[in-house]
């Protein structure tokens, strides 16, 4: 425990959405002038906890003490006036207005009824200089880089006399040099006695700047410790909720792997995509399920989208069925026999107002067409076949897909790709947000498809899914492929060790545990 009285004490916070617990008995304690890291998987409850703190959400239970006073902010604006400022990943400032205006937005200095620009510009420049940022504060905000814009957001927070600054993934769009500047600012804040809650997915960063770390999982705060007392491997296992030694077996719908691998359907090497992916490699053979593991932000989805032509890579080679290709559009990849079920069903998958029938046949429609007219008899036959094969539950094939459950929507999207008869199917989090029954069903279906010769590249944040489902596992960390494990070596500890870049631990884990 820090020696002084804590600045913030959140205790036993409960938050329910429609009956499901988003937070249960979550607690967080931050000392004055401390940088507290808050980490966890997607959906662990970090954002919800922050939103409860800043009044964006009301809480269903628990207490919050800030500077020894119980608080219950009604809105983030009120929290800001109360001394808690939040800096979001997406910068919530006005790009067309000047830097100074942005800093003083909503509490401009006035003089004789007019705005006192001289004073505002001088103070804005002053507060930015404290963070070693020397810019012309009269220029519009959008003239500056994301990093500078973030500094402006921080300066704004500090000029509100914030005692606590919350930074929600501020580094995700910054390059290394900019990150270093941001860290200097955080240390400066700490030196001035301002506490920081720092949310990030890049674990390396925690060790550079944070004092303590709180890990969240499934809406609970599972552990809090000093940065110095915890290594990355333990941090990851706390986030994923896996005891380093034990992994539940038969927790998924995957039956034993077949081990039969056919010809190579995909090989991608040296992929480089924007800032997120530096050097990624994956290989998939026919009849194989290949797992692509990695923490959030490790570049898994970017790799998938690059192979599918959705965001072509900056460098690297992609071979599909042994032929080097460079898909520039998803339609190119589809023509090569590649399918991609995206992670975000709602944004990238379903066409909500279209029927189940139309959603299933969206990818294959050009092939069901003669002279531009859709052959509805053929369409109907395909839809009926896949509705039955995947046991899709809908009132009728004409029901709008948005009315279906998550599991059935996912099956419709699987059907969309299966009816194109792909050679390679990329599945990005195929079972996220799906109830347990449908999950096992989808998992056994994936295995069945692979046994019939389909090559599957499966991205998953669930270790069980990777460990039990995959015949081979590639682990991505920070945009690099750091491990390539056969099924026999791909146990939870080896994968987590790879995520943590711990080579010795990978070797030990994969040698010691052959199941």
């Amino acid at each position, binding site marked *: 425990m820090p020696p002084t009285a804590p600045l913030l004490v959140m205790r036993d916070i409960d938050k329910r*959405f*429609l009956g*499901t617990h988003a937070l249960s008995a979550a607690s967080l304690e931050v000392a004055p002038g401390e940088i507290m890291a808050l980490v966890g998987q997607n959906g662990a409850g970090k954002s919800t906890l922050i939103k409860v703190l800043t009044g964006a959400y009301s809480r269903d239970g628990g207490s919050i003490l800030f500077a020894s006073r119980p608080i219950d902010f009604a809105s983030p604006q009120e929290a800001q006036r109360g001394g808690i400022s939040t800096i979001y990943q997406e910068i919530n400032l006005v790009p067309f207005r000047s830097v100074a205006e942005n800093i003083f937005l909503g509490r401009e200095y006035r003089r004789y009824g007019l705005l006192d620009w001289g004073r505002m510009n001088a103070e804005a420049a002053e507060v930015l200089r404290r963070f070693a940022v020397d810019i012309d504060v009269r220029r519009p905000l959008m003239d500056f880089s994301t990093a500078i814009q973030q500094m402006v957001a921080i300066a704004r927070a500090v000029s509100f006399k914030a005692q606590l600054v919350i930074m929600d993934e501020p580094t995700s769009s910054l390059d290394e040099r900019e990150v270093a500047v941001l860290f200097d600012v955080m240390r400066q804040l700490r030196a001035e006695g301002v506490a920081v809650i720092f949310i990030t997915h890049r674990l390396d960063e925690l060790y550079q700047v944070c004092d303590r770390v709180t890990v969240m999982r499934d809406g609970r705060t599972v552990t809090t410790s000093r940065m110095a007392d915890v290594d990355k491997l333990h941090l990851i296992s706390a986030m994923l909720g896996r005891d380093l030694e034990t992994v539940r077996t038969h927790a998924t719908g995957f039956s034993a792997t077949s081990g039969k691998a056919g010809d190579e359907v995909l090989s991608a090497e040296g992929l480089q995509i924007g800032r997120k992916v530096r050097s990624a490699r994956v290989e998939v053979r026919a009849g194989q399920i290949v797992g692509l593991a990695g923490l959030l932000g490790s570049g898994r989805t970017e790799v998938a989208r690059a192979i*599918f032509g*959705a965001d072509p890579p900056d460098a690297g080679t992609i071979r599909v069925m042994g032929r080097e290709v460079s898909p520039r*559009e*998803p*339609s190119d990849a*589809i023509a090569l026999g590649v399918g*991609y079920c*995206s992670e975000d*069903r*709602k*944004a*990238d*998958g*379903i*066409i*909500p*107002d*279209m029927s189940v029938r*139309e959603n299933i046949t*969206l*990818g294959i*429609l*050009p092939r069901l*067409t003669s002279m*531009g*007219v*859709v052959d*509805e008899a053929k369409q109907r036959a395909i839809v009926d076949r896949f509705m039955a094969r995947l046991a899709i539950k809908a*009132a*009728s094939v004409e*029901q709008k897909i*948005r*009315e*279906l*459950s*998550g599991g059935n929507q996912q099956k419709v999207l699987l059907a*969309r790709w299966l009816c194109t008869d792909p050679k390679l199917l990329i599945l990005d989090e195929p079972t996220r*947000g799906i109830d347990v029954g449908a999950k096992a069903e989808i998992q056994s279906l994936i295995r069945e498809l692979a046994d019939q010769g389909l090559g599957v590249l499966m991205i998953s944040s669930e270790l069980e899914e990777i460990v039990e489902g995959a015949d081979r596992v590639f682990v991505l960390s920070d945009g690099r492929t750091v491990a390539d494990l056969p099924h026999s070596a791909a146990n939870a500890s080896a994968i987590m060790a790879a995520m943590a870049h711990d080579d010795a631990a990978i070797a030990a884990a994969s040698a010691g545990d052959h199941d």
Partner: protein
Amino acid sequence: MTDAPTIARKGAPFDVAGFFRRYAALTALLALLAFDFAFTPHFASLQTLNVNLTQVATIVIVSVGMTLVIATGGIDLSVGSLMAIAGALAPLIFLSPFGKAHPGLGDALAFVVPVAAAGLLGTFNGWFITRFRVQPIVGTLVMFIAGRGIGQVLTNGNLQVFKNPTFQFIGLGRVFGVPFQVIIMLALVAAAAWMLKRTLFGREILAVGGNERAARLAGVPVSRVKLWVYTISGLCAGVAGLVVVSINSSSDANLVGLGMELDAIAAVAVGGTPFTGGQASVVGSLIGALLIQLVRYTLLANGVPDAAALVVKGLIIAGAVWSQQRGKTT
């Protein structure tokens, strides 16, 4: 949380309120017709029918293209200006020395070239919007402003007066007593409705409007689809421009198609096509245009001034949007 509650569809009793909400414009149109037959003097005549259909035809022709554009989630403000360009080009062609020397060829070109030009300018709209990711309302605003300028430059701002029965058949001719432009209107509505429902292109339009990102990931050529809907919108505007100038026997690039974009958008809105894209009804747009037209006619025929009719037109649009909103929340 992401799962919408499943709505029971089968076995539910006939939903009267839902029916009227869905067919609000049609219901209003039928009610208004009943009113007119009962109270408006001389309503039940072929002449009344023809007057109304002739007046509405250009709006409907333009709103066919507009419906397709709106189905992709876009909007086309340039249609009125494209009408002016097409309307300016046609007389330029058949009044030119070449057109007078070869009347047959000149008249044929006077149909084809203006429509093709309007279509190409529509293609430009689509290219501009997809290539530079400009918002459609801004992208087509460029052509809305520049297009009318082009029309005026073509004619030096002069009024072109003409008398050319072959060409003017498009606006004044009749087939079995039916005005030719009404036949064009009905043919376009039928073709577009069929195309939306039955063809690959139609389904791709709705997929792009329903969820552009998902459509792209499913292999739909999003840019090509958009390029085509703006082209079709341009072609429709071109046809409408020819109809207007042949009715008037004159072409004034300052006036042809003025305000047409808003009339067409109003027809689409009243017809029940949502502006978010993904759903569209061309027949709905026809009904919407007919409803607006008939309201105006009814008010005029009963001695209410045109200015008041505009207010009613506004109220109809508000009512249409309101019924759509209710449809969404219930």
